[in-house]
């Protein structure tokens, strides 16, 4: 691996570390705030469970992109599938919010509670990072169509995959955190 490729991969990893600190900040705020009491409890709506499944599947699908390259085939369709799964994930999250408001859990206003607000903000913050992932997928799929990727030259795809898997793991963390903490 050339120095530059290694450096760029590291750049992403440290960036991921930085994002982790951001969510660590939010989730520790959650814990501290919860310990102070005045905390509403409610069920996590189903769409969030479905979205969890969707994002896991998307990550698994994405791993096939690399094997496509090994077979010297284009990974375009794989990337596109992942992209679509990402859109579905987004839609499910939005659906989850709708469900929440139906349950009477609001982000703000009279009757809102920090428990609910935290859920909205954590999911929203994750989604913002996911949009970045979607953009990266879009770029990667364009590159794939243009046939830019090969086994030797797949840095763009590698970076996108790393980030996407990270988003999945981050979501799993948030999901289980919200459910069980």
């Amino acid at each position, binding site marked *: 691996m050339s120095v530059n490729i290694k450096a760029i991969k*590291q750049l992403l990893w*440290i960036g991921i570390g*930085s994002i982790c600190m951001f969510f660590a*900040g939010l989730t520790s*705020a959650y814990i501290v705030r919860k310990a102070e009491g005045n905390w509403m409890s409610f069920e996590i709506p189903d769409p969030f469970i479905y979205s969890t499944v969707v994002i896991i599947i998307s990550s698994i699908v994405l791993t096939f992109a690399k094997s496509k390259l090994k077979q010297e085939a284009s990974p375009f369709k794989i990337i596109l599938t992942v992209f679509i799964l990402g859109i579905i994930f987004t839609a499910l999250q939005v659906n989850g919010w709708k469900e929440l408001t139906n349950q009477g859990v609001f982000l*703000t206003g009279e009757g809102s509670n*920090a428990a609910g607000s935290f859920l909205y903000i954590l999911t929203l913050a994750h989604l913002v990072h996911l949009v970045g992932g979607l953009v990266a997928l879009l770029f990667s799929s364009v590159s794939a169509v243009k046939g830019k990727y090969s086994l030797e030259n797949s840095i763009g795809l590698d970076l996108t995959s790393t980030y996407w898997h990270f988003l999945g793991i981050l979501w799993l963390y948030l999901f289980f955190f919200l459910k069980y903490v």
Partner: protein
Amino acid sequence: MSDHHKETFITKYIFSLDHKMIAKQFLLTGMFMALVGMLMSAIFRVQLANPGESSILYNFLPSHWINEVGALNPDKYLALVTMHGTILVFWVLTAGLSGTFANFLIPLQIGARDMASGFINMLSYWFFFAATVVLIWSIYVPSGPASGGWTIYPPLSALPQSIPGSGTGMTLWLVAITLFIVGSLLGGLNYIVTILNLRTKGMSMKRLPLTVWALFFTAILGVLSFPVLLSCGLLLIFDRSFGTSFYLSDIVINGEVLHNIGGSPILFEHLFWFLGHPEVYIILLPALGITSEIIATNSRKPIFGYKAMVGSLLAIAFLSFVVWGHHMFMTGMNPFLGSVFTFTTLLIAIPSAVKVFNFLATLWKANIRFTPAMLFAIATVSTFITGGLTGLILGDSALDINVHDTYFVVGHFHIVMGLSAIYGMLAGVYHWFPKMYGRMMNKSLGYIHFWTTFICAYGVFFPMHFLGLAGLPRRYYTNSSFPMFDGLSDINSIITFFALSGAVVQVIFLFNFFYSIFKGPKTTKNPWKSTTLEWTTPVERIHGNWPGELPEVKRWAYDYSKPGYEDDFVPQTVELKEGEKDV
């Protein structure tokens, strides 16, 4: 670099990808902000010495900040203090200091052609620039800029009803700081990756100059702590603009009962200081690194205890993450938790002491050459001693009861963080100016600038300890409302006298700086007879730093006055002799 495409003015000076140009952009923006911040402090010092009177300095302010009799409005005093703190902490001593020297020195001192990603580097500057524009803009909004202190504790910062600056001004402050954080993170990522990957052949971590080590730890601190400030700010933004209750609870203001229940302002303080404390080391460490480098070079002597110097930087960096509670002893925190924070805080004194002793040992039996940079470097050690010692009082929770939030704190942090870092920055500018601009700064003006600054700075900040021990709280528009402080007006006048003089003498520096850029005498390749790699580059400062091959490193960075060599310095590129040991 091989591809010599035509450089236009825009790509060379504005959207430059070259780390040296980006460093200068950071430096100039930082210097501009330093002037703004300094002017603000001059203005509020005038108010403190002559409370309720008018002053010609107020002509710099928007007219509605001044009341009928020409005096500064009390809430605008707080606006000035807040902006002064914000600007100096973040804009000058984080971006201005790290941004300048990390960008300039890292590639040059490790033997790299540029940063790992020039593009990210450029983005980092432009985010910072955008942040600067927003912050300056916020000063001119009708309700005034943020006024809740640079620590922006809610509910004060969350409720526009509580102080006018918490309206639009505060919103813009948050926007600016968000842009600032993004810029700092992009910069920090780049610095770390560059240091880890792009070191030239032979430049092992054990041979890195201490500047690079310091900038490395600084970048790590930034990358780990700034995101937490971002999350802290995010929740504040939601509380302010969308009516959530993370930090707000049980509030009645202007007769209005707010709906917020259950939030906790203390939560904000925890999140804020988790960044806030590392932040003070983000400010200080680069200055210590620069100081180490300059002291060694101009003592003509190796830095004493290189490993201990790196080790103490590491220890300080690590400890800085576990001491944030010392800013919160008086929040009613569990006394046991207070004890823990006292313990961890006082531990920091150990690596700090090691650094001081090692600096002194470096000076011992040296052959000191007093360049202006060296003068400032020695002054950094002096302020680090003076200010560090009072930290023992503030870190001790029992003693903090009576000095917390008084002028004693203001004196302490200005000396240990403000002065040390400003001196470090000035030392760095004097030292690397020939590398940045290919010309020398005037020595005599440098001497005058140093001594006047040194005198004025201690004259401003040392007396503040006494104000604090007299019980005077900080962030007071005037101390004339309490008879118990009537005796303090002399001290206040002395401080203001030195503050104004100190501000004026900076003109000498500014003049020297800009004059020398254009008219200074041309420099030679290695004017300070230094060992590090940046002085092996050509004076012309080319893209890619070295023409031809990158230099190869054969030894550590501090072979000054090594026995067995004619010269009193041995550059890092010189092969070890037969049987010679590298330290």
